């Protein structure tokens, strides 16, 4: 089809060239000898041969000799080639046409080859780039299939390994572009590591070409290519590209899978480590309030009426306070564990920041009663797109932290402003600020500001950081140029239509 099309496109250029040459020759005929007029036709032949295909070039050579004979060799208007010298002219013209045509053809082919190679390199580069960003096997396969499909101008679907065989259900597209009956071909390809189907084995009458994805150790899947529309590359180039893509994809899938395994075992190890450090750190914190509770309760039971009412009240108060502390600790631990295990599910919705801050202030009512808390939130602030409960916890933790590390009755300020698509929140106290080197450890688990003064769990800031990062934000801590510590973090903003 394409060859015929090319011929139909180029032959008018031959006709046009000869017509032009004839016109020039007719003008110059009174002044030049026929041999020199032949040179004009030669120019036309060269021009056509350099652009057109070989057949057009040959026809042009022949036609120009005919035109030359007709118009430039007397008697004009007749084919009376008596002189054998014009036979020589014809042979020379034909030879020139063919030689030039062949040369330009070669140059042209080289040029397309280079372009093809460049396109192939580009495609592979984009493939490896796309695959490098993916951390899940399935995402790698999906990205590869999408790219291959674009580059090959075909529908490409990748089937992944499921145990020892291939599964049509673990595929990269929702829609299955090949009949289920071809499962056996895919399975054969997977088991034997050889291509099959369309273009390889036409007896199978398959709708797709099945290419094995071979990793360095084992086959990881099968890529099915279903042709569609005009291909971007010619047949040979396409085959090379398919092979290269299959190879790249297989290696990327294998690498991702092994990375995931490594990651899993690393997490497992860290979890073990965390568990033991958690146990040692927490057992002390759990046992201290329990000791107070047991002590106070047993004192009241034993001494009964002998204890003066005021002392009795104190003991009861301490039971209640210590129980609160215990409950806070357990809650923090549960939160942290849920974060560590990825069990926390963000329930993101649009909330006014005011509401989230208000929630924290109310929960800490007792703790903050002799503090001046200034909340400055612009009315125009967009809504926060986040989890109300978890973000409320962040403010609770930061405020508790501020109260813990600053002198009584010093003020605390909460301010916010809109920055591009985020809300920047700062919580500032008026205490002594951070000691040098402290900031680096602030957000670590079980880190406490000052020894001896630490009544907390050492988890509050770690949880805050985890919550903010889960929202795609960042948190940082620094000393205010004047006085006090500042925590600054960013939360995702969202604008909803203002209701009437």
């Amino acid at each position: 089809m394409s060859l015929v099309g090319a011929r139909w496109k180029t032959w008018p250029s031959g006709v046009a060239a000869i017509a032009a040459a004839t016109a020039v020759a007719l003008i110059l005929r009174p002044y030049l000898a026929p041999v020199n007029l032949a040179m004009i036709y030669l120019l036309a032949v060269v021009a056509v041969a350099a652009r057109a295909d070989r057949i057009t070039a040959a026809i042009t050579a022949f036609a120009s000799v005919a035109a030359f004979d007709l118009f430039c060799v007397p008697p004009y208007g007749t084919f009376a080639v008596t002189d054998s010298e014009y036979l020589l002219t014809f042979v020379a013209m034909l030879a020139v046409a063919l030689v030039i045509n062949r040369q330009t053809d070669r140059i042209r082919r080289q040029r397309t080859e280079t372009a093809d190679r460049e396109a192939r390199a580009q495609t592979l580069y984009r493939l490896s780039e796309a695959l490098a960003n993916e951390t899940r096997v399935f995402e790698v396969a999906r990205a590869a299939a999408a790219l291959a499909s674009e580059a090959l101008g075909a529908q490409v679907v990748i089937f992944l390994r499921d145990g020892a065989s291939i599964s049509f259900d673990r595929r990269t597209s929702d829609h299955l572009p090949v009949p289920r009956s071809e499962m056996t071909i895919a399975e054969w390809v997977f088991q034997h590591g050889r291509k099959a189907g369309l273009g390889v084995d036409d007896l199978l009458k398959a709708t797709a070409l099945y290419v094995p994805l071979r990793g360095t150790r084992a086959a990881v899947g099968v890529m099915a290519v279903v042709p569609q529309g005009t291909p971007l590359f010619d047949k040979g180039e396409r085959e090379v590209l398919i092979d290269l893509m299959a190879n790249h994809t297989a290696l990327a899938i294998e690498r991702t899978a092994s990375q995931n395994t490594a990651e899993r075992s690393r997490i497992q190890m860290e979890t073990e480590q965390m568990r033991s450090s958690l146990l040692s750190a927490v057992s002390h914190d759990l046992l201290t309030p329990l000791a107070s509770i047991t002590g106070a309760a047993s004192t009241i039971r034993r001494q009964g009426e002998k204890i003066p009412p005021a002392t009795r009240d104190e003991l009861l108060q301490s039971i209640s306070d210590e129980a609160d502390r215990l409950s806070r600790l357990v809650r923090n631990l549960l939160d942290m564990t849920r974060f560590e295990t990825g069990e926390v599910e963000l329930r993101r919705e649009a909330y006014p920041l005011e509401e989230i801050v208000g929630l924290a202030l109310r929960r800490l009512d007792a703790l903050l009663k002799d503090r001046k808390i200034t909340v400055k939130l612009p009315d125009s602030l967009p809504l926060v797109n986040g989890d109300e409960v978890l973000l409320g916890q962040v403010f609770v933790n930061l405020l508790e932290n501020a109260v813990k590390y600053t002198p009584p009755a010093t003020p605390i300020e909460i301010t916010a402003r809109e920055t591009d698509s985020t809300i920047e929140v700062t919580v500032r106290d008026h205490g002594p600020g951070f000691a040098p080197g402290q900031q680096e450890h602030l957000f670590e688990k079980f880190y406490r500001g000052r020894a001896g003064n630490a009544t907390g769990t050492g988890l509050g800031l770690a949880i805050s950081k985890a919550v903010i990062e889960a929202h795609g934000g960042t948190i940082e801590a620094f000393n205010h140029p004047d006085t006090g510590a500042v925590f600054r973090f960013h939360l995702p903003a969202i604008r909803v239509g203002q209701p009437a």
Partner: protein
Amino acid sequence: MKPTILVIEDDPQIRRFLRATLIAEDYRLLEATTAEEGLREAAARLPDLILLDLGLPDKDGLDVLRTIREFSKSPIIILSARGQERDKISALDLGADDYVAKPFAIGELMARVRAALRRSTVLPADQSQTFGNIEVDLAKRIVKVAGEEVHLTPNEYRLLQVLLKNAGKVLTQRQLLNEVWGPNHTEQAQYLRVYVAQLRRKLEADPARPRHLLTEPGVGYRLITETPE
């Protein structure tokens, strides 16, 4: 005669301190340790209020709630453990009146009990109501803060009205959206939040530290009209 309260709770320690307080406050007390027993008591003795633990051994607490609601309109207060936010919302949507999360202080629970009993006996009259420095004239639809009339949009007023009718009670976002905007808008929680924020700016002295229009995190809102003791 003192109101009768049915406690459906399997944990003996919690039953013990509930018993101590409820008896000390002169309520008549019924106890059930399983869902089955609780349903039987609720049907046979028609208590004035039910305290229901969601984590019962023999049956899902939500199922118990649903069954009780088939025959009883008595206020039900849920006792829920932490991490049961969803159950809490479901319970409220299923007709529970309130909830307290464990661990809770007994004072808080008793305040909820009193509020729920009051709501169930006194029908809110269509008249003026005052809380804090806010005055709502339900007949004339006029709202005054510290004696000054404030203008509310129709939706803001509807919202305040619904909250006021259920004063002291938690209303889930779904319930509020349904009551104010109708059943087709129960998913548009962000509008509700914007309205609540607007209402707070108009009514509360410090909207970041509201004293009346309180948020119940992850659940909904509650309007407090009485000053805590």
